[in-house]
């Protein structure tokens, strides 16, 4: 059995689209809602900017989980970007699962600019789950460990 490290703080890379989710994250901050400081936000123009390679690179550099946030379906600033994201990420997540990488380390959520509370909730849930799972060992790069 794996011994749980109580001090383990999962590192999370959270891609947020500029138009909805990034504003949502901002709102969470200005409303003083709490979510773990280990969630690192990367702003992207649209959720469909996320190349599968970005997700892999985040894991390589030590992320324990990667979450992509975009506008709700129908609300994408570029009309349809998030529909393409949805297909791509479904396939990518399924492939990671197929390779035996824990399927709960990846996630896609729709967070609007008004959903600050939801942003904080989603992050707390995601981090909580990662906390239970422990560190990412299967898809990390030993050269990038301190």
């Amino acid at each position: 059995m794996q011994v749980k490290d109580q001090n383990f703080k999962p590192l999370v890379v959270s891609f947020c689209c500029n138009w909805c989710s990034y504003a949502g994250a901002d709102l969470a901050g200005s409303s003083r809602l709490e979510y773990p400081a280990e969630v690192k936000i990367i702003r992207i123009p649209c959720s469909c900017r996320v190349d599968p390679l970005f997700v892999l690179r985040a894991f390589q550099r030590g992320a324990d989980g990667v979450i992509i946030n975009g506008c709700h379906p129908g609300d994408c600033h570029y009309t349809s970007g998030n529909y393409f994201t949805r297909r791509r990420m479904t396939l990518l997540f399924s492939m990671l699962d197929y390779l035996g990488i824990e399927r709960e380390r990846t996630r896609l959520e729709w967070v609007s600019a008004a959903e600050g509370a939801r942003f904080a909730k989603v992050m707390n849930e995601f981090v909580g789950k990662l906390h239970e799972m422990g560190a990412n060992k299967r898809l990390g790069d030993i050269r990038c460990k301190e």
Partner: protein
Amino acid sequence: MRQKAHELLSSGAVGAVLAWEKGELPYDTSPAVFRDAEALDKMVYNGFCGSNLSKYLIEQGKQDEKVLVFLKPCDTYSLNQLLSENRVAREKLHIIGIGCKGKLDVEKLRTQGIKGITGIEENETLKIQTLYGDHELPREDVLLEKCLSCKGKDHKVYDELIGEDLSADTEQGDKYAKVAELEGQTPAERFAFWRGELSKCIRCNACRNTCPSCTCLKCVFDNAHSGVAAKVNATEFEENMFHIIRAFHVAGRCSDCGECSRVCPQGIPIHLLNRKFIKDISGFYGEFQAGETAELNSPLLCYDLEDAEPNIISKREGDN
């Protein structure tokens, strides 16, 4: 075939013929371009012509001339894919569809202990002469992996068909059998399986180079700034990454031609990655076969308002 090639080449109807050329050994054949009618003596078509000629048409198509190409039924799917992406101009091609009875895998012969082959007679049973004596064995025992799930005998694109028996009459196996088996395992078992396979990869890039869907002029794996261009995989991570990205780039475009696994010098079953994508795409977005037509219709280039959410993956049954 040779006669037809001779006719078209000497009449000037085509400037080049793309076919297979005899090598030193009976099982040695390689794709070749013939420009000279005399040289056509070296042309062959036998059970070892498994290689798919479509990708060579990209290079050939750059010349200002018409090319005669011979395609097996499965190869025509790859060509359709290339046509749909405007990688090859249809009007520069003269396509002759040829029959196929399933191609042979020399590695499978070797694992059966058949070495030093000096001659082969191809029928339902193969008669093989070797330096150490003769062998007889049924053809279906040594077919290439891709032929075990043959897409059928129809040529999807051609100008003419030749040969009396055009049927690709290999048994239609369930192409998803192995994928489904892996899906049924626990993630830890799958992880172990893929580590075992992918750690054999020497990053020779043959799988990418042979793939008729990998046609980017500038491949991400050659781009020194991409951070993924390392020649040899330095860590487990790079092995995983190379394979995930390569398979992802051809998702929705891979016609399941099986070339990637056929050419892998390490015998890695890479087609199982592509088939996983094909299975998922067909499952989530409707039955799909790339190269069925020459239209651009990749499921990753379109969407449906009612598509499933990716989180169905994390909600799958079972442990991590």
